[in-house]
């Protein structure tokens, strides 16, 4: 019972946030119930869930994909195109988007999983790049090319449109994060989930035991992709439009940053990584335009203007010194010790 009580309690507590008028200085610019703060929190929760869906591949199955953005972008673009260019109703569009996301993940997953390791990473990158080019190319005037386009908001449910309804969007994002958490938890404790983790540890051994890693990896790939597609639809509701930025390789790389900074192969780690990253990215942008920073000498001010520089450096530091991610920071001392003594690694003594 206790295992379910903690996440449930956190979800309930977070659900009451929009009712609070508390002002948290430094952390947020405005009080908690204002639309600005709620939108920031909603984005954080969305990316927390999305990072966890990526960790299902990377942390739990050991598949390094550089194409996760493609399935997220399918959620954003297909739903938005169906509503705006084809004038479908909201639920029709969502169902169709889920179908497209599922089929695409099955087909592309089946092809890319023919290779493994780094080749798999490059192939997924290439497919995602194809999606990115397609979105840029603006076929039939659907995607709006480089600028993207705004969704036809008449088609969205009325209670999600408008600044006064931001709290509803926040709840949708919270529901998404909670659902991803619950699904991932269920999946990795199921019997295929155990096989995924065994594949991550030693794929050859799984094969020797008489199981086919290919179909299990495909299962994990499709589930993670579907969760990302769902995240794309939530993103569309939050942002109200589609832009090419969500299709790029850099977008997948930021997911990788989130997962590694938070901690791979751990549900809380990936989720907290996603939340922290999104929060830091938004707040550092605000900070760089603030008065305090503009007073700094230019050698300090210039790097601060690009949150990605700070987050990239933080990421490198985490890889070096906190290999389990920030949520396992307790093991840092042990790790430093190992780096200083620098023993021959398993692979090189082999």
């Amino acid at each position, binding site marked *: 019972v206790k295992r379910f009580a903690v996440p449930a309690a956190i979800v309930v507590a977070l659900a009451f946030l929009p009712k609070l008028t508390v002002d948290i200085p430094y952390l947020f610019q405005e009080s908690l119930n204002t639309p600005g703060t709620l939108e920031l929190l909603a984005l954080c929760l969305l990316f927390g869930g999305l990072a966890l869906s990526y960790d299902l591949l990377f942390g739990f199955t050991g598949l*390094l994909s550089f194409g996760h953005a493609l399935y997220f972008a399918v959620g954003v673009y297909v739903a938005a195109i169906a509503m705006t260019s084809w004038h479908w109703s909201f639920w029709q569009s969502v169902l169709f988007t889920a179908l497209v996301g599922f089929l695409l993940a099955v087909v592309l997953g089946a*092809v*890319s999983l*023919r*290779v493994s390791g*780094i*080749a798999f*990473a*490059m*192939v997924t*990158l*290439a*497919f995602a*790049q*194809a999606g990115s*080019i*397609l979105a*840029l*190319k603006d076929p039939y005037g659907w995607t709006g090319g480089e600028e993207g386009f705004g969704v036809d908001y008449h088609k969205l449910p009325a209670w999600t449109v408008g600044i006064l309804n931001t709290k509803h969007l926040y709840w949708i994002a919270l529901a998404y994060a909670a659902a991803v958490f619950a699904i991932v938890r269920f999946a990795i404790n199921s019997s295929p989930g155990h096989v995924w983790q065994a594949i991550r540890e030693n794929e050859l051994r799984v094969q020797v035991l008489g199981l086919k890693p290919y179909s299990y990896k495909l299962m994990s790939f499709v589930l993670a992709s579907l969760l990302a597609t769902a995240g794309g639809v939530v993103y569309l509701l939050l942002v109200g439009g589609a832009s090419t930025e969500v299709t790029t*390789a*850099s977008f997948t*790389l*930021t997911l*990788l*940053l989130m997962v*590694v900074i938070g901690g791979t192969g751990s549900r809380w780690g990936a989720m907290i990584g996603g939340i922290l990253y999104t929060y830091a990215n938004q707040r550092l942008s605000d900070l760089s335009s603030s008065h305090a920073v503009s007073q700094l000498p230019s050698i300090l001010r*210039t*790097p601060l*203007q*690009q*949150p*990605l*520089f700070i*987050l*990239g*450096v933080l*990421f*490198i530091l985490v*890889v*070096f010194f906190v*290999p389990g991610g920030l949520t396992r920071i307790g093991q840092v001392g042990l790790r430093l010790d190992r*780096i200083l003594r*620098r023993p021959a*690694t*398993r*692979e*090189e003594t*082999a």
Partner: protein
Amino acid sequence: MSTFLLLTITGLGLGAMYFLIASGLSLIYGLMGVLNFAHGVFITVTGYTLWFTESKLGGVPVLPRFLIAALVGLVVGTVFAALVELVLIRPLYGRHIEQVLVTVGVALAVTALVTAIWGSDARVVAAPAWVGDTTTIFGAHIPNDRWLEIAAAAVVLFALEAFLRRTRYGLIVRAGVENRSMVTALGIDVRRSFTLVFAIGGLAAGIAAVLYTLYSTTVDPQQGTSLVIFAFIVVVIGGLGSIRGTAWAAVIVGLVQQYANYYASSGLGDLSVVLLLGIVLIARPSGLSRSFA
């Protein structure tokens, strides 16, 4: 006919550029098992050093100014690549995923830093006038920079082959690609050649950067990343760790991209390259290298 010739030479020029970038990636991967995401940053570093040096040499005529700037750019790019290996990759030997992650971090952080310092807009580089002219062959007007690209790639291919086949270090690198543990067991510190391979990769990518600035006459923070994605595709099609396979794949990808962009529709060339990758993977998951090596 003249259009076809123009497309072929341009495609070969593009392939030459891909080869220059992909050869380093392929060697690094073959020897060290590292997918080097920071390779695009090597291009950015050389390109921006070239632009910066050129902007500081105000009174000098264009040709010597460009040559000096290109030389400085190549040196800085090569040293940067070697430093990335020494400082960031070396402490993580044997942990491939962590090494890949660090190169991802370098790629994002350096691109962001360059954007912060010089902005995201393209900066104009003055190129010698001859490069922008065309040479007429069989009625086709071919821009001169294409010849430079093809010649540079041919020289690099020849030099790399000579290095790998004729020198002692090349022998160690080839043996290391084949079986690293065995080389170590024979008492050779194969890790010393890792820095060398990174420096070679950085130099080849730098040459690609110089040629690219000749072609586009601009530098911008994102151009390295976009070139490297196609170089990744070339590496996979060519078969990881094989220089000849990479050369063939680069030519095929460059030509397919040019032909499809012209005869089908613009933008389709990029998609057909991805399609080509899919076909190669289904037919021959380990890449083309076995058939060419």
